[in-house]
């Protein structure tokens, strides 16, 4: 429990550092928000009045404090280009990206763990070699290319879904999930290939250790040695990888959302970057990093449960 508490505190500190960094970076990049809101023809007096009203003449750290506090309250500012609350714009995009990532993660685990164990058990067999070759090819795929292929095969040829026919989760949740399965598959595929390879080699190298020999000499069957002794130790590096992959998937979904025209966080991030809509960009960056940090924290806590050695130290 102490270990989990430590992880939560680390996360909060990291989040503070990330938000401060994001705020300062945009403070210096974005120029004067008052000018960009009023347009270039506004009189200097009006700009100055708005600057005072928006608190832009205060010290930077005070501005950060106000921004962060508002952020915690759920007020992320006003979008320059849409003149609407950023919180509202972001709020209904988060479930889309989160669902996409969770689906992709589940697919990766469901594909990778059984295949990894199977190939490790049958090293050098025909199926192991075939999977090995397919793996090498898939790992080299960037997810957007996998996305294009999946659109072609499942959308155009097999007609399992309508490319571009995104269904909003507010209208039809199952239709929404049904559509997201395909982009999720595109995100999951390259990561699953890596996880299979990692789990396979982890099980193989773990099986060479002396305690496995001891386990056999105590009269364990091959199956018992694998499931009771080897697997738990072999999964430790794989869990680290899965955690990193999940964090990576959140970021990776930005591109896949473009390929499958899904209106998620990635979509508004890209449009608001090209519109120089900095409040939205900042909000999306903070949301994404918050998601990544939470994922990392959960992975660390699970890691401590699986491997007692970590929480001891």
């Amino acid at each position, binding site marked *: 429990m102490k270990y989990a508490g430590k992880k939560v505190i680390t996360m909060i500190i990291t989040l503070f550092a990330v938000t401060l960094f994001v705020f300062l970076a945009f403070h210096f990049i974005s120029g004067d928000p008052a000018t960009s809101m009023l347009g270039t023809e506004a009189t200097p007096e009006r700009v100055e009045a708005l600057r005072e009203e928006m608190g832009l003449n205060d010290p930077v750290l005070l501005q950060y404090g106000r921004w962060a506090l508002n952020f915690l309250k759920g007020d992320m500012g006003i979008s320059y280009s849409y003149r609407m609350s950023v919180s509202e714009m972001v709020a209904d995009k988060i479930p889309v990206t989160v669902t996409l990532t969770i689906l992709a993660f589940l697919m990766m685990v469901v594909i990778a763990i059984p295949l990894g164990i199977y190939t490790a058990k049958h090293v050098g067999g025909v199926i192991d070699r075939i999977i090995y070759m397919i793996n090498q090819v898939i790992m080299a795929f960037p997810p957007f290319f996998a996305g294009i292929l999946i659109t072609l095969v499942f959308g155009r040829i097999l007609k399992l879904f309508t490319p571009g026919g995104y269904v909003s989760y507010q209208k039809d949740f199952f239709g929404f999930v049904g559509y997201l399965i395909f982009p999720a598959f595109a995100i999951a595929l390259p990561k699953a290939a890596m996880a299979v390879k990692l789990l396979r080699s982890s099980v193989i190298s773990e099986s060479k250790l002396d305690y496995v020999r001891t386990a056999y000499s105590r009269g364990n069957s091959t199956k*018992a040695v694998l499931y009771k002794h080897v697997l738990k130790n072999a999964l430790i590096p794989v869990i680290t990888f899965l955690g990193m992959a999940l964090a990576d998937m959140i970021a990776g979904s930005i591109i896949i959302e473009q390929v499958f025209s899904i209106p998620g966080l990635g979509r508004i991030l890209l449009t608001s970057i090209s519109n120089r809509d900095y409040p939205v960009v900042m909000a999306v960056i903070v949301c994404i990093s918050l998601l990544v940090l939470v994922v990392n924290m959960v992975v660390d806590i699970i890691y401590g449960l*699986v491997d007692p050695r970590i929480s001891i130290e």
Partner: protein
Amino acid sequence: MAEKILEVSDLCVSYECARKTPFEKKKSIQVLKEVSFSMEKGEILGLVGESGSGKTTLARAILGMIPYEGTIIKTIENPQMVFQDPYGSLNPSKKVGWILEEPLRLKGGYTDEERHEKVVAMLHMVGLDEKFMDRYPRQLSGGQRQRVCIAGALMLEPKLLIADEPVSALDVTIQAQILELLQRIHKEMDLSIIFISHDLRVVYQMCDTVMIMKDGQIVERGTVEEVYFNHKSEYTGNLLQSAGIDINS
């Protein structure tokens, strides 16, 4: 004449070499060449030879862990083995209690309390106590780990223990303690031991009889006194000489 517990005759073991290309012919190396010997109850047999001479292979064949040709007649049940490296031979993610209970669980027929009692008794037997049940292997010293390994091997009260270089990974002071422990359980549990080692001094101290191996064959077999003071083969002489035990000259 004591009762024979182990009789090995014409034991051959060969390993297949990994092929570099699928077109290569399958090659195999013969690791044991027609090994024959027998062992009596209560004997501590030292098995000596340089690396690659087939000592460990012989042990694994006796335990039935690898395929072999020839006959191995064991009149005792489930011989057990203690390995060289006490650091690697315990599962890092299991507690000592779990590790020691495992043989009992696999055999079955014990209640939880019986298993617990047996584990506690065995921990005392090897000079540890019940505090160790809740510890992970990495929290133990090398000597303590080797004691846990020995305890694990003894859980089902085997009549034959094969100790494969059990002390060569340990400090000299710890070595002496572990050897003492092995001698004590030899007496208390009526145990026969095959003691594999390349350290002729340790073998002299520990064993009743010695078997010298070279290239998968037995070069010499006899009591410690016979082999050390009156050896027949030149190879044994060389071994003794290079170990600094030059008794004959």
